[in-house]
């Protein structure tokens, strides 16, 4: 699946997007974030405070228990500050 990062999540991870191939046992968004945090110190720093992380799958907001199976695009970012 394609991962997209925005704002300080992007800055800490160091890239705006990357292709992810999580192992088959990663079922939920929460599990995906745990797995992702182990990829690099930057990933770990970006995802350290999970309460400040928001996730969208295929451009819709999802919670930590959402399933990642079938997701084409997963976006990870801080709380939004538009308007």
């Amino acid at each position, binding site marked *: 699946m394609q991962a997209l990062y925005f704002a300080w999540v992007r800055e800490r991870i160091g890239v705006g997007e990357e292709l992810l191939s999580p192992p088959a046992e990663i079922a939920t968004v929460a599990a995906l974030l745990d797995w992702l945090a182990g990829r690099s110190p930057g990933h770990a720093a970006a995802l350290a405070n999970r309460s400040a992380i928001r996730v969208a799958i295929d451009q*819709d907001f999802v919670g930590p228990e959402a399933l990642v199976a079938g997701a084409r*695009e997963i976006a990870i970012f801080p709380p*939004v*500050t*538009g*308007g």
Partner: protein
Amino acid sequence: MITTRTQAEPFDAAAETAALTTARTDIGAVVTFTGHVRAENGLEALTLEHYPAMTDRQLTAIAAEAAARWPLLGGTVIHRHGRLLPGEAIVLVAIASAHRQAAFEAAEFLMDWLKTRAPFWKHDGSGWVAAKASDDAAAARWGKA
């Protein structure tokens, strides 16, 4: 019904608003909101990052939701991204209806939604602007959107 778009360029709030009522005699109320960049704490510029595919998808959905909740006769939502200077307009919500209550409520609903659900992030030159709990509280009054 409600047209939505994001753009880096400035918008003409007056022309957008006038376009809603041109040649119409069924509209009794037009409410417009424009948000402007404030020069707080020595701010030189705001830079807005956004997630275009999600913004488009979510804006379209929330505009349909507003049109379903209130008897609207037209509307325009524009959100800018990129670099904006103090005083510049950043967002426009313009809503037309037969009566004022629907127009006011729909405009506030859309603004509350933009503040809490539209994927934009402001950087003030020294860091990323933090989200406000008051915006979440304002959005919560509309129930699940």
